[in-house]
Structures are given as structure tokens and as C-alpha cells.
């Protein structure tokens, strides 16, 4: 039987939706039993949220003031200590998971699967390579632990409805002091979160200035959408880094994605391939974004956006 340990991701208060997506991936491993591990300074509320997710058998909490921030160098030895009784160890393919899981895998002496996008068997998974231009099926050798990050855009979030047990566990592997958290500067925002929002409006280089980028925010407000950006827009300083969508930014799967003034480079497209409906607004009818758009509108964004907002009432 497979015993799957998922390392919960949270901000100290709330469980990340990415963890609920990991649960859905893990639940596809036939006959698996899912445990969520919450490393936190105050795991209580996070653990309760985790315990409600359908498919989770148990939640374990590891309380430690050092887990107020998540540093891979501190967490990895603790995860390794817990790992002994599990066959699979999963984390989301977020910056948290990408930082932690390879460190865990190396300490366990096993290779890691990045961005698992489908479960073919308990040891067989599909994952994208070359910015999603090829999909490979990988097989983990018998008797080795499966350590993986889960491509969140490939799995719906597990729903509430479960009632898992919650128990405190101690993990006391020595934590190094060579790595120290200093600060986090997060743009305070009451907008929908880019990674989980059902609708996303993204702007590209064509916005041409930070001021103009407000047009994207304004349309997003109308649609109650999250805001995203191309790398060019982030590099130019029109939008902040956490808004980048693509191969090296966020991979998202909203119901509706609106790309404004974005050409559609492969590195950008890989981030939006799983969007249900893609709308592209671009003045160049030859732009590659139109090859993936369900609805394309050729024209000048500076005329189209105000008109679109007006039409949306």
C-alpha cells in the first residue's frame, strides 16, 4: 500500500490552495493513504483546514517557532525524519515546493519528479519538459521512495467534506543555523490570488508603462479577476515579479485568461495551456498568441480596453 506524505504549504494562518491540489493528485494513487504534515509555529487553524479536505486520512502537526518561516534548509531534515514510514512524499510545484522537495530528495538519496501532471500508477507519472512542448512518462525504480512536486494547474483542489484526525508529532532533527530568514516584501492585495483565481487578466510589453498597466487592473476589477503579466512587462517594471506567468513564473489554469498585448512566446504559453478559455487582444494578427486563443481580437489595446470595460457595464 502507498503511504503518501504531503508537505502542507501555508502562510502561517491559512492552508494554501496548492496543497488541496496536491491532495487530488495523491488521491489518484490507487489504494493510497494520505497524510498532510503541517510544519508551523502555530499549526492549529491550518491543520483544521487540512483535516477537512476530502481524501486526507490524517493530519500531523509539527510545532516549532522556527517554522514561522519556511526555510528549506531547516525543514528538509525534519521531513526526512518523518519520511521513513512513507512511500511517497509530495509538495506543490510552487516556489516553496521547488525549494524544499529537491533538498529532501537529495537527503533521502533519491531522484525527484518535478511538476507531476498525471498519475499513471503509484510509480509512474507524466510531466512536462521543454516548456511543455513534450510530455514524458517517468518510472521510479522499485523500492525507492517517490519524491515529487505536483503541477498544481493539472489538478482541481480537493473539496471540503472530510474529517481527518489531527495529531501532534515531534521532529527534532538538528536544524542548521547557516540559513536565516530576514524579511518578506509581499504586495498587500485584496485581489484574487493569481494561482487560484478563476479569471486572470494579463498584460504584456505593449502596455508600455507602469501607469498604462493600470488599464489591466481596471479590467481585472470589472471581471473580478487576478492580474498577471508577461516576463517583458515584469522586466520593464510595469508589474511586480510575483505576477509573471509562464515557464519560469506561475503556471495557471483559470476558467478565463485574457492576454492583452502579449505576443505568446512559448515560455509564456506554457503557463496558460490549461486555461479553459483564452482571449487574446493584440494588434498583430500574426502574433502566436492567436494560435492558442479561443477568442482573438485584433486591434489596439488602448482603444479596445476602454470599450471592453464599457461593454461589461
Amino acid at each position: 500500500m502507498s503511504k503518501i506524505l504531503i508537505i502542507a504549504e501555508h502562510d502561517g494562518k491559512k492552508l494554501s490552495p496548492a496543497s488541496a491540489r496536491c491532495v487530488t493528485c495523491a488521491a489518484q494513487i490507487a489504494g493510497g493513504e494520505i497524510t498532510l504534515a503541517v510544519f508551523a509555529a502555530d499549526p492549529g487553524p491550518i491543520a483544521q483546514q487540512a483535516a477537512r479536505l476530502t481524501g486526507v486520512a490524517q493530519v500531523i502537526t509539527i510545532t516549532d517557532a522556527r517554522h514561522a518561516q519556511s526555510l528549506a534548509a531547516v525543514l528538509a531534515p525534519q521531513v526526512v525524519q518523518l519520511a521513513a514510514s512513507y512511500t511517497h512524499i509530495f509538495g506543490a510545484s510552487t516556489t516553496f515546493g521547488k525549494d524544499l522537495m529537491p533538498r529532501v530528495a537529495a537527503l533521502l538519496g533519491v531522484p525527484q519528479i518535478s511538476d507531476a501532471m498525471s498519475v499513471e500508477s503509484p510509480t509512474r507519472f507524466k510531466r512536462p519538459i521543454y516548456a511543455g512542448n513534450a510530455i514524458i512518462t517517468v518510472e521510479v525504480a522499485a523500492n525507492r521512495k517517490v519524491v515529487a512536486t505536483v503541477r498544481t494547474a493539472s489538478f482541481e483542489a480537493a473539496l471540503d467534506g472530510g474529517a481527518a484526525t489531527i495529531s501532534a508529532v515531534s521532529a527534532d532533527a538538528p536544524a542548521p543555523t547557516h540559513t536565516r530568514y530576514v524579511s518578506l516584501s509581499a504586495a498587500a492585495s485584496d485581489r484574487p490570488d493569481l494561482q487560484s483565481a478563476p479569471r486572470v487578466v494579463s498584460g504584456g510589453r505593449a502596455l508600455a508603462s507602469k501607469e498604462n498597466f493600470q488599464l489591466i487592473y481596471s479590467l481585472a476589477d470589472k471581471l473580478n479577476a487576478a492580474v498577471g503579466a508577461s516576463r517583458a512587462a515584469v522586466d520593464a517594471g510595469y508589474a511586480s515579479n510575483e505576477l509573471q506567468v509562464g515557464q519560469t513564473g506561475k503556471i495557471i489554469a483559470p476558467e478565463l485568461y485574457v492576454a492583452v498585448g502579449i505576443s505568446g512566446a512559448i515560455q509564456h504559453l506554457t503557463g496558460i495551456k490549461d486555461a479553459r478559455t483564452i482571449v487574446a487582444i493584440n494588434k498583430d494578427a500574426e502574433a502566436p498568441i492567436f494560435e492558442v486563443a479561443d477568442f482573438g481580437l485584433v486591434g489596439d489595446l488602448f482603444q479596445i480596453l476602454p470599450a471592453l470595460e464599457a461593454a461589461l457595464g
Partner: protein
Amino acid sequence: MQKIIVGIKRVVDYNVRVRVKPDGSGVALDGVKMSVNPFDEIALEEALRIKERGEATEIIAVSIGPDDAQQQLRTALAMGADRAILVKTDQAIEPLTAAHALLAIIKTEQPDLVIVGKQAIDDDAAQTGPMLAALWGRPQATFCSKLTINGTVATIVREVDAGLETIEVDLPAVISADLRLNEPRYVKLPDIMKAKKKQLDVTDLATLGVSIDDGLKTVHTEAPKARAKGILVKDVAELVDALKKKGLVS
């Protein structure tokens, strides 16, 4: 600080749209343009700037790959690396093996800093940096977009999902370079000539005592599902209509 090691991976150029072989055995690489992994250029550029500030004395570019990876190492030497090491292997390797090979080099070279890319754009794994740091028992700072060195401590700004995180690590450490760390310099012709004379040592995995970990095997390669072709709408009204029909706007 004395030495900085930079990982230089030979990958398919980022402008190439790779094609999957019809028999599912992999992607077609014959005649495809190969380059230095873009993130590794950023990693090297950062090392060069550290050296130019007088905070390091030697930069060693290391690649694990086929003989042809010497081309990418020559590019690294032309950019300004002092010498290069090729760890030859004709087999495709997983990041865990790459990390073991880099560790073996580290053991002899004793660098104060290792800078790798955040991810290689062929396997998109984003594993080698943290794996190497784990095996080495040293700090890691992934997704670095700003690096400051103060004696034996490095301060790193990391691009994380929530925004920008700052951490501090004791050296030696492993850093993985993100896109906005810097803009790599262009190689000039005279530098390419000069690079031909720089030292490039060739070794192999067996000589380093590294065996290829075969715990993860690729058993099949396929093309991704294509999206169904969409339509062009003629104006805003038609677009809003189409979205309403799909229930995406009210």
C-alpha cells in the same frame, strides 16, 4: 572570497520549438541549435560581477555532458570565466547525478560559492541547486534576484510566489539564479579568440567516482495535447457576446 563555481548546461536554444519523435523515444535533437542554458548565463554574469568588484579571484565553469558541451564551456570562457571543467558523459543524466558530479568537483576545488541556474530549460527540473546544497550540507538560496556579499555572509533576495523574500546565508553556499538577477553581457570577438587559450580540463563521471543514478527512468515521450483552434471576433461587442454565451461574464 576565492573561488566561484558556475554550472553551465548545454541545452536546446530557447528559440527552438522542439518536436517529439513519432516513435515516442524522445525529442528530435539532430541539427538543433544548442546553447548555454539562459539561467546559467545569468549565473555566470553574476559571478563575473562579483569578481569585478574584487570579491572573488577565480571563476570555474563546470559542465556535465557530452564532448560537444565544450562549445558551451568555451562560450563561458569567452564571457570571462577563468577556466572550465567538462565532466564527460554520453548518457542523459538526472539532476541528482549532476549534483553528485558537481559535489565531486567542489571537493577538490573548495569554492566559496556555487551559482547555478534556477532551472535548465530542457528538463525544467529546477532541482540541481537544492540537491547539491543538501549533499554538500550547505545553505541554498534559490530563485535569487539580488545577491550581496559581505565577507562570509551572503544576503539574497529571492523571487517567491508571495513576492520578494530576503534571506541570509553563511558561505560557502549554493545560489540559483533567477531571470532578473542581471542581464548577461554579450561575448565580443576578441574574447572568443582569447577563450581558446584558456584552460579546459576534461574528466568523466567514473574518474570522479560518480555513478549514474537510474532511480528514475523516462519510459515514453509524447507531444502535448494541442488546443482546439479558436476564432477571431471582429469587435468588442462580438467578444462580449461570445463570453456571455460561455457563461464567463454576466
